[in-house]
């Protein structure tokens, strides 16, 4: 079956991106809930333009590989709206896996760190996107969808765009909470604020793209708590607005670590594919270590608080 002519939804959304940022800026000035710093905004937008350009120029690599595999599919996927809807849900689960890996493996984190490198959380942060695709090979996660389920690569590209546009509007502090059923089912500004938190409580949570149910199922869900405001950014924040540094600083660090003298092949591989923060001598902390230490501190504090009543 000939695929329908699908629009490039990200390109179509560009006017909406610009207008909504202006609206958020004005609303933020009025409500105090959105903060835009000039150079931070400029850096985010340049990263977004870079990502868009890389997508236009190199997108054919990932699309080409998937198109090459498509004739070997085991079944055919339909093009009606019901099939689109089902494909969107399945592809969102694929996104959850990618996003989980993007935080758990340094190979994917070197690109994704870009998106988390701002200490602000506004609509421009949504556009602070990585320059690592397609050469981080994350598109290979779509291979099972093409080969086993027979989803057309163009359909997947379209759905990826829809997912990206969906995730744009949740990068805001202007919207606090949405009605409970929506908060239960969908990724919302509140859930995604928690995802961007560098507080130990919020590290590595809420990986869902459009739906938050994947996190609820997999045990990675963490609600945003009013008593613990989210501190945006990285556990070790960067101090640069240079787009090249923002895009590649983690890759350079991986290169340095993986070529350290006196370590074995296993350690070199762990520096490339292991969790961010892993080190062969234990001198750094992974998100898991930070969380464990924090939990232990919390437990100690709770026990300490209970002591007077026991005496």
């Amino acid at each position, binding site marked *: 079956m000939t695929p329908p002519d699908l629009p490039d939804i990200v390109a179509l959304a*560009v006017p909406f991106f610009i207008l909504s940022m202006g609206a958020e800026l004005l609303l933020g000035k009025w409500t105090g809930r959105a903060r835009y710093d000039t150079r931070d905004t400029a850096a985010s937008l340049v990263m977004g333009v870079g990502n*868009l350009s890389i997508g236009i120029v190199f997108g054919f690599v990932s699309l080409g590989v998937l198109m090459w595999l498509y004739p070997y599919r085991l079944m055919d996927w339909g093009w009606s709206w019901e099939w689109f809807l089902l494909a969107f849900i399945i592809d969102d689960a694929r996104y959850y896996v990618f996003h989980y890996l993007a935080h758990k493996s340094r190979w994917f984190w070197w690109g994704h760190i870009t998106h988390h490198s701002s200490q602000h959380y506004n609509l421009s942060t949504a556009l602070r996107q990585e320059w690592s695709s397609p050469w981080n090979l994350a598109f290979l996660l779509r291979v099972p969808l093409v080969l086993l389920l027979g989803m057309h690569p163009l359909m997947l590209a379209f759905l990826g765009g829809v997912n990206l546009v969906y995730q744009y509007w949740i990068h805001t502090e202007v919207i606090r909470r949405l009605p409970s059923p929506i908060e239960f089912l969908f990724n919302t500004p509140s859930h995604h604020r928690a995802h961007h938190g560098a507080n130990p409580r919020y590290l590595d949570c809420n990986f869902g793209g459009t739906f938050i149910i994947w996190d609820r199922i997999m045990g990675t869900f963490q609600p945003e708590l009013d008593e613990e405001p989210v501190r945006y950014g990285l556990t070790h924040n960067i101090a640069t607005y240079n787009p090249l540094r923002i895009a590649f600083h983690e890759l350079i660090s991986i290169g340095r670590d993986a070529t350290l003298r006196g370590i074995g092949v296993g350690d070199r591989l762990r520096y490339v594919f292991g969790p961010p923060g892993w080190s062969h001598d234990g001198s750094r902390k992974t998100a898991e270590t930070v969380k464990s230490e924090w939990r232990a501190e919390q437990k100690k504090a709770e026990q300490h608080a209970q002591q007077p009543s026991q005496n």
Partner: protein
Amino acid sequence: MPLEVLGVLVGAGVPLAIVLAHLAGGSTHTLLDKDTIQTKLADLDPSAELAEVLVCEGGQSALFTLADGRLGVAWTMERSLSLRLLSTWQLKESGQGLEVDLRDPGWPTRRLQVHSQETRQQWLHTLGPV
């Protein structure tokens, strides 16, 4: 969407958003003081206690020591603040300032303005290089 139209939209939209951010007060810088650094430090390590702080000229960068002897550097990013505790570091005199090299591509070598030679020597003597 034709590439030309996309180019025009992006070419006009990006500068417009940056100008709006500037007009909304986005170009102001936080000025560092001991309280600001202590607050940010508490985010990283609630038990950390500041001992000595050297706020450099301009107020946008600072060196500090903690009560337990650890060292750190603070750098304003407009209204935000980046702060690092140093494990491997270099501190050296550079003209009328001190140069901090974290050997981190995400934190390029920074020159902290310290006009007083006496102060520079004091911090160099206290902190480094190791």
